[in-house]
């Protein structure tokens, strides 16, 4: 910088040119090293990689510096309270919302986004179809857009149980049927990944059950699934991996079981509480021990099953009146992570 200030006229131009050349070289070497990196990629097939994604609506940042990746064969859940940026994130990766900064790539970045989307099945919020067209006509149109043959239509209609209604106009469908048609349409190309945004929102219990059954069926066939939801039990039941968002920031991403307390905890009751607490404190497997209303909660540091513990305590002369081994629920974990006071639930 100092050199630059002192230089005049022609020298200044030369310095600028040198800087440009240096910069070009740098970016070139960067891109070639990136290329090497892609070549030596691990065997895990990456479906989607998101790097430092940010989306601002005016001053409000809906998504902040979000990075994650999705590998083939897993079922992912995006969890977060309302307004945490789930739908915005999905909108960006699905090409309908423009990101402010950051990037994402489908299938290792080998194809353009819209071509990649032909291998993706996605349902965002409410099902959108042409109301004046029948179920069959709508699905035929989707086939044309995705550039696939129409031979799968009947099979997928059967999967979601809409075969009898195939020649009825979309506008006459109930919400549950619309949602099921959307799933059929998303599956038409036998997608590599199925993306669902709040698929059970606004459905009655029967509808919710039907949709979950379909999702389970699809998941069991080995399709990768990305499920955005604020319904925890939904995610807990279906997903193997989870990404937790709050106010556009990633709080956690990884396996569901890693997120739940690693080894669970025991709830114990006995006549002589103090003896039990001392015994547990000296046991190598236990970490934190809480005592509340005559109930002892002992958190495990390593795996230990109830049978072994019971036998051990019995040998030491302690007879239990209550023994339960539990894992923390996703809900408890989620609330701790998103910093919402759990006491509200207890009232």
């Amino acid at each position, binding site marked *: 910088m100092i050199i630059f200030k002192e230089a005049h006229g022609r020298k200044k131009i030369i310095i600028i040119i040198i800087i440009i050349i240096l910069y070009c070289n740098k970016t070139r070497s960067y891109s070639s090293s990136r290329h090497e990196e892609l070549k030596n990629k691990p065997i895990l097939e990456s479906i989607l990689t998101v790097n430092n994604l940010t989306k601002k609506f005016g001053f409000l940042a809906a998504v902040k510096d979000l990075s994650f990746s999705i590998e083939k064969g897993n079922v992912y859940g995006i969890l977060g309270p309302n307004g945490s940026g789930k739908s915005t994130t999905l909108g960006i990766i699905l*090409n309908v919302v423009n990101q402010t900064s950051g990037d994402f790539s489908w299938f290792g970045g080998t194809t353009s986004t819209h071509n990649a*989307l032909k291998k993706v099945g*996605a349902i965002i919020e409410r099902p*959108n179809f*042409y109301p004046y067209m029948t179920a069959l006509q709508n699905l035929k*149109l989707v086939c044309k857009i995705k550039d696939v043959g129409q031979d799968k239509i009947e099979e997928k209609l059967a999967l979601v149980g809409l075969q009898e209604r195939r020649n009825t106009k979309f506008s006459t469908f109930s919400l549950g049927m619309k949602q099921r048609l959307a799933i059929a349409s998303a599956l038409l190309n036998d997608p590599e990944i199925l993306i669902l945004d709040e698929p059970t929102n606004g459905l009655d219990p029967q509808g919710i059950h039907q949709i979950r059954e379909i999702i389970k069926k699809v998941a069991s066939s080995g399709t990768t699934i990305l499920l955005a939801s604020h319904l925890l039990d939904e995610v807990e039941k279906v997903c193997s991996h989870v990404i937790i968002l709050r106010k556009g920031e990633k709080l956690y991403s990884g396996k569901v079981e890693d997120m739940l307390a690693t080894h669970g905890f025991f709830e114990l009751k006995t006549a002589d509480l103090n003896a039990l607490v001392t015994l547990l404190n000296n046991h190598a497997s236990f970490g934190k021990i809480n005592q509340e209303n005559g109930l002892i909660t002992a958190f495990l540091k390593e795996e230990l099953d109830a049978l072994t513990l019971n036998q051990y305590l019995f040998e030491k002369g302690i007879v239990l009146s209550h023994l339960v081994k539990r894992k923390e629920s996703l809900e408890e974990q989620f609330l701790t992570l998103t910093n919402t006071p759990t006491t509200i639930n207890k009232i």
Partner: protein
Amino acid sequence: MFRLLQIEFIKLWNNTAGKLLIISYFALILCMALIAAIKFDIGPIEFHVADQGVFNFPYIWHLNTWIASGLKLFFAIVIVSMMANEYSHKTLKQNLIDGLSKKEFIASKFLTVFSFSLISTLFVFILSLVLGLCYSDFTEISIIFSDLEYLLAYFVKLIGFFSFCLFLGVLVKRSAFALGFLILWFIMENIAIRFLVWWLVGKEASENIMRFLPLESMSNLIKEPISRFKAVKSMVAQVGEVMNKDYAVHFSELLIVGSWTGIFIYLSYALLKRRDL
């Protein structure tokens, strides 16, 4: 390209209202043939339009394209709703998610507009040819196929106008409002800009500027043919006026409308690209 046209065809043809409007548009063009049937028979005065030379080659090319282009406003409803419906049904979003790129989306709409303009031009050509062969006083090949530039002007005019409608559909997102905006734009061009410039600079400058505005340049492509008609001409001559009007289609006018077409399609694409859906 064929795939994009097919996509748009499925969307349009399964829409009863859209189908009805398209069919009636072509039916209305067909109704031009009915001019031939106009006959006054008031005692001693017998007047048959078809015998007055309106269907003479090459005048018929000018007359028919001018009348047919008046019907384009009717078809604008189809074009505007074709675009605006994608927004109101939110199917635009779904199309993009299903793997249509924004470029392909605009391309499919433009291709549809292009095909409709082409079909409409062919339709007018065949209709005029048939009418001319029935009623024209001259049927030499060289005369029949002279002045065909009116058909080219008609084609360019339709594409330009429909592209404008497409752009309004993208901009306003609601078909009724977009049509309202179209009328508002017409009033603005013809009253606000024309008279503002007239008042500020003068009549000549006003006319020069008007030539470059989208709707005015489109209507300039094919000038009104009525005053060119022999009977009208002789009437004017009787009053003692001499009319020297230029009826030809000029290349510069085609270029202006062509540029507007490009601008509207590009703006539609740029707008779509910038928007979050």
